[in-house]
């Protein structure tokens, strides 16, 4: 079968003289249906395949731009912790892997966070970039999530987290595991401040990220088809020595099993988030800010208080953690 593998590609490029002015990424192949998507359509449909509805993975900066009003937000910054705490080396050093991930993405690490408005509502969004070492969680992510959570508390904003991660960053050893604890505390600070904490589970959310802050939201929204779970499918198959059923660990499977509240297509995500956040931040009538008639315009810089304490006759929340 050598002739199949070792055929010589006709040198079409040289024949037609195509070159510099032709960008080579005009068309994208959908990982779902293998059909080609024109790059303008990709942008237009928020990186959802118009043929099969497959939700392509997108970077954290795109996520933020997609959700804030006019795509405008203030980036949240934090001190980047000491990189490579273990001086880790596998087939390559962690320092080198980190360097190339930074060069590839232009970011310091896998988490990007911003504060801004969503339909006028104060919101902090933190999103993970799967392209940065599989969105893995190390000390930098812990620091970033904590900074974002505290920003939400300071601004009395809703906190929206959009994970996309294979789990803990092994190269940081036990310190990456400790970030599960740290991020859990971070999101609890938001919840304890009476503010909504909403998780948008995207493809993939597994391992240490799913087993910490990603599963502790007040509301869990998942993107269609996203793989969400604790153990990797290969590990499970090795354990049970069986092939996994179709659709296992997909968003729809989690919905069926009670682990997420809703599966929402990307095109409806912003409206869904804004509606939910509005209800949670502004429970009293006449405080709507979503553009409908009963609107009360927000004054510049006005911050809406979490209204729980003002609710007349509010029953205490049943004792839970």
């Amino acid at each position, binding site marked *: 079968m050598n002739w199949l593998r070792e055929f010589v590609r006709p040198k079409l490029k040289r024949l037609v003289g195509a070159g510099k002015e032709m960008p080579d990424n005009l068309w994208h192949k959908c990982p779902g249906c293998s059909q080609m998507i024109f790059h303008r359509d990709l942008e237009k449909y928020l990186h959802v395949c118009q043929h099969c509805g497959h939700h392509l993975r997108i970077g954290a900066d795109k996520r933020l731009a997609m959700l804030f009003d006019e795509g405008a937000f203030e980036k949240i910054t934090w001190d980047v*912790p*000491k990189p*490579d*705490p*273990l*001086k*880790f*080396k*596998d*087939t390559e050093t962690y320092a080198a892997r980190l360097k190339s991930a930074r060069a590839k993405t232009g970011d310091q690490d896998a988490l990007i966070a911003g504060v801004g408005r969503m339909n006028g509502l104060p919101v902090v969004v933190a999103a993970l970039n799967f392209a940065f070492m599989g969105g893995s969680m190390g*000390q930098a992510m*812990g*620091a970033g999530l*904590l900074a974002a959570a505290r920003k939400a508390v300071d601004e009395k904003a809703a906190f929206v987290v959009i994970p996309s991660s294979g789990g*803990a960053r*092994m*190269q*940081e*050893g*036990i*310190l*990456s*595991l*400790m*970030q*599960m*604890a*740290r991020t*859990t*505390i971070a999101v*609890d600070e938001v919840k304890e401040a009476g503010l909504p904490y909403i998780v948008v589970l995207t493809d993939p959310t*597994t*391992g*240490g990220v*799913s*087993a*910490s*802050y*990603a*599963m*502790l939201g007040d509301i869990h929204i998942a993107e269609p088809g996203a793989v*969400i*779970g*604790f*153990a*990797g499918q290969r*590990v*499970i198959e090795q*354990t*049970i020595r069986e092939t*996994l*059923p179709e659709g*296992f*660990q997909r968003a729809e*499977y989690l919905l069926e*099993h*009670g*682990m997420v509240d809703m599966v929402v297509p990307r095109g409806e995500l912003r409206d869904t988030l804004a509606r939910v956040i509005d209800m949670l931040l502004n429970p009293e009538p006449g405080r709507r800010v979503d553009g409908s008639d009963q609107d009360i315009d927000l004054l510049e810089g006005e911050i809406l208080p979490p209204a729980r304490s003002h609710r007349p006759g509010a029953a205490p929340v049943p004792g839970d*953690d």
Partner: protein
Amino acid sequence: MHNYLDFEKPIAELEGKIEELRHLSSDGQMNIADEVGKMQAKVDKLLVTTYQKLTPWQKTQVARHHDRPHAMDYINSLIDDFTPLAGDRQFAEDPAVVGGMGRFRGQSVVVIGNEKGSDTVARVRHNFGMAKPEGYRKAQRLMKLADRFNLPVITLVDTPGAYPGVEAEARGQAEAIARSIEVCFGIKVPFVSVVIGEGGSGGAIALAAANVVVMMEHSVYSVISPEGCASILWRDGDMAETAAGALKLTAQDLADLGVIDAIVAEPLGGAHREREQAIQSVGKEIDKQLAELAALPGDALRSARREKFLKMGTNGLA
């Protein structure tokens, strides 16, 4: 008769010879006391030198040793009136997580542990210490019970990790672990955690987000097993030994990284050689740590626990 690990071969040979001599002398003719004494001294010396410089991979093997005392051994020895409590009140009882209440040095406590089981039948029953969601949810229930009655919590960590299976995923393994960590940080009682063997990733920290985390001298605690790490990063499971070194998973490494608070010395040749002695050393350490924590009010315990873990973001080896 011991179960020997690979690197204990010279020790095994010497102890085999001693055994042989003893057998011969039972015939009554030879006086072997001198010879046996000399050889025993050699064995002790060999144990000291071997166990002083165990590699991270060797420690992993010691931590997983079948004869090592397991959670129930500690509970049976250290806890009076132990009253096991079962079930998560939602789905099932998970024998991979044992727990209940009892008296430690007279004080009522709640104890929770990963149990691996000490023989084949028990190992299967306890699912080799790999908990399912119901195990973590049971742990949450017991921690909340402790909180309600102001009882200190002791956890004994010894698991290869949370169980990776279809039912576990279907019932929300990730959520169960996440929620356990959250409950650990919510309770307002003294909370001491001891890694007695293997601290396997999320399945371990679900029970170990404590005020004080103690490790046994030859225990390990890691984000992933050396085998798992080797097969992912090296794409070669045989590189586990190298991965064990790179992961910095020994008690000594974790103390250097500021992740744990104390190390309990093990008997000569590891906890599996002198089980009761190892158990009593752990008891002494728990006693000491609980006494210190007892002075703090509930809110302070809770916030100190959080502060401690929040600081674990700027660490590293010098």
